């Protein structure tokens, strides 16, 4: 392990402190806390030496500086390069997965592991009536994460909520990206859709899995970064920390826009989503743009026609007897019958 200040702290000092706490709790150790004045002096000296070394080695001074990230014009190009087939690769599974991954991290200022950990039961929808008519929010609940402090209920003891609204620009809208991702997974790519009769069959499914053939397997950090890197490379973004870039870029943008901090305080769900939609007067939600009146109810019943055996209208007006895939879909609706 290289002896940088960060790595010394995380690789040596912190583990030793944890070990001391365990031993002290067990009554084994009678020594003082290891993080004493000597360690502090050593760390300070290490940081000073590191700074001098960086200057002596002509290390890139743009790293972690004010413009280490992307701007909002560049963020609009994420979806463009992805939906154009990522420069001809046309690996659509990866493309749709990376799109929802990037847009979610951007809209909710998430750390990358939060998206890697996210599972389907963590998602739900919410209508925000105080935000105007037809304002839909997608909420993602989070129980695991590096930054959820133990005293705040980290380690699955407390749930934090993040969310996002619809964006007026369809390319920047994470809600639309999520809808397209699910449609691709269950209506086109052949992944078995959730079977809601059996929790074990779908509770472990990842939102952005490593592969649709194994949706319970979490994507690796390196794979996630590699796909984000491909997008950034095509857009022309160079950043020092790939997966940190979205939340840092949004945080800077929020600061430059002088948005009130209480609108972006991350643990509170609706504020994080506000950074990307309602707080920016130049953007409107799609639901408002099209007045929310154009609701394609007969058409909508074709998409995501999840297992109708347990999903039925109480009124009985619509009976959905269909499999998930379009190729064999047979939808029975009051005004519509489609044989795919």
């Amino acid at each position: 392990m290289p002896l940088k200040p960060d790595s010394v702290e995380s690789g040596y000092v912190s583990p030793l402190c944890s070990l001391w706490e365990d031993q002290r709790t067990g009554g084994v150790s009678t020594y003082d806390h290891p993080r004493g004045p000597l360690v502090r002096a050593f760390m300070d000296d290490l940081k000073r030496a590191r700074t001098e070394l960086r200057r002596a080695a002509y290390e890139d001074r743009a790293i972690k500086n004010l413009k280490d990230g992307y701007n909002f014009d560049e963020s609009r190009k994420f979806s463009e390069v992805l939906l154009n087939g990522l420069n001809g690769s046309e690996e659509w599974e990866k493309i749709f997965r990376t799109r929802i991954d990037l847009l979610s991290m951007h809209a909710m200022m998430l750390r990358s592991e939060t998206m890697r950990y996210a599972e389907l039961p963590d998602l739900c929808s919410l209508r925000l009536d105080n935000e105007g008519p037809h304002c839909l929010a997608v909420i993602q609940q989070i129980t695991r994460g590096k930054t959820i402090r133990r005293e705040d209920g980290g380690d699955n003891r407390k749930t934090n909520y993040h969310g996002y609204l619809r964006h007026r620009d369809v390319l920047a809208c994470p809600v639309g990206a999520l809808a397209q991702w699910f449609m691709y997974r269950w209506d086109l790519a052949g992944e078995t859709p959730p079977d809601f009769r059996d929790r074990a069959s779908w509770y472990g499914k990842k939102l952005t899995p490593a592969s649709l053939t194994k949706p319970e397997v979490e994507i690796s950090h390196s794979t996630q970064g590699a796909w984000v890197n491909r997008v950034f490379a095509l857009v022309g973004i160079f950043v020092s920390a790939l997966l940190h870039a979205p939340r840092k870029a949004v945080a800077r943008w929020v600061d430059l826009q002088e948005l009130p901090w209480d609108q972006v305080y991350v643990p509170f769900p609706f504020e994080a989503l506000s950074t990307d939609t309602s707080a920016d007067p130049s953007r409107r939600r799609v639901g408002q743009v099209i007045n929310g009146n154009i609701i394609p109810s007969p058409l909508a019943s074709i998409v995501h026609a999840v297992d109708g055996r347990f999903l039925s209208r109480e009124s009985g007006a619509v009976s959905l007897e269909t499999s998930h895939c379009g190729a064999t879909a047979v939808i029975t609706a009051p005004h519509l019958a489609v044989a795919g």
Partner: protein
Amino acid sequence: MYALGYASGQGSDLDQSGDQFVKLLLELRVVLLQDSALLMPRFPKLPLWKHPVFSHDDWSRFAEQVREAEAREEEPEHVLLARTQPLVASEIAALNRNLSGLVQHGTTVVSDAVKDLKSYLVAAINALTQQIAQNQAPQRLLLVPPEAVKESFLNESFGDMLSTTALTSRSPPARRPALDVPPATVAPGPSLESNTQARPVTEGWPIDPISPSMKSMAEVWQEWHHGLGGNPSVVELDKRFGNKWRYNSKIRQRCSIRKRLVVAAKEEASRRGVPVEDVISMMDKIKASDGHHLSPDKISRLLSGSNKQSLSSLL
């Protein structure tokens, strides 16, 4: 709404997460179709368009509706606001006109009423004046101290019109020490006509028998022995009324201060063998360490208290 649970015979356990997720999917179906209408022309190679929903007869019409709605430029709020301004101004102007009409009408009505009232009052006053002139002389209210009223005078003058018992019963008590308001200033002798401030009293001392301030020792001496501002002197008041004229604590305190000064002046004059007027004059010239003249009040305080000094030491 949708009810989610296990199919009949497969358990009754409800899955709330599943219910919420299904509701999310139902919302996303609409989002997907709306967004697809806008994405399809820009990204025709997307595999999403292979889904049968996009080849449905209704799709083209719906997509066109969405695209038309999206193409409609929504006007910014400030433009809408600017457009409403003339309407608001017009409404306010109309409101102003209505209010002006109402005010004018109201003014006319009130003016007429005032005129009517005025003419009525003039007529009534004239009639009353005429009646008084014809029937009787004007009445005069006389306020006199009880000691000036002789039973025989009242009986002779007013006969059955007045009751002397009533007048006597209205006399205030001789002394009201609890009140700061003194008895009315009514000198014995001539009666006052309609004096609303003075009250008929038997005592006869002034409301302010003693001046609130002391400008000089000469003034103190004058007030003590000869009177000041038309008031009788303290010596005379003591002689006539005893201590009753000092009817409140304020007057008693003023009197005490002046007495201390006068007594000290007399004692000093006796000690020196000079006329007391000379001592009074010397007391007016006493200066403090800062060069200012000492007021009588200050001298009085120096002559009393725990650290009191003698007048000779001050002179």
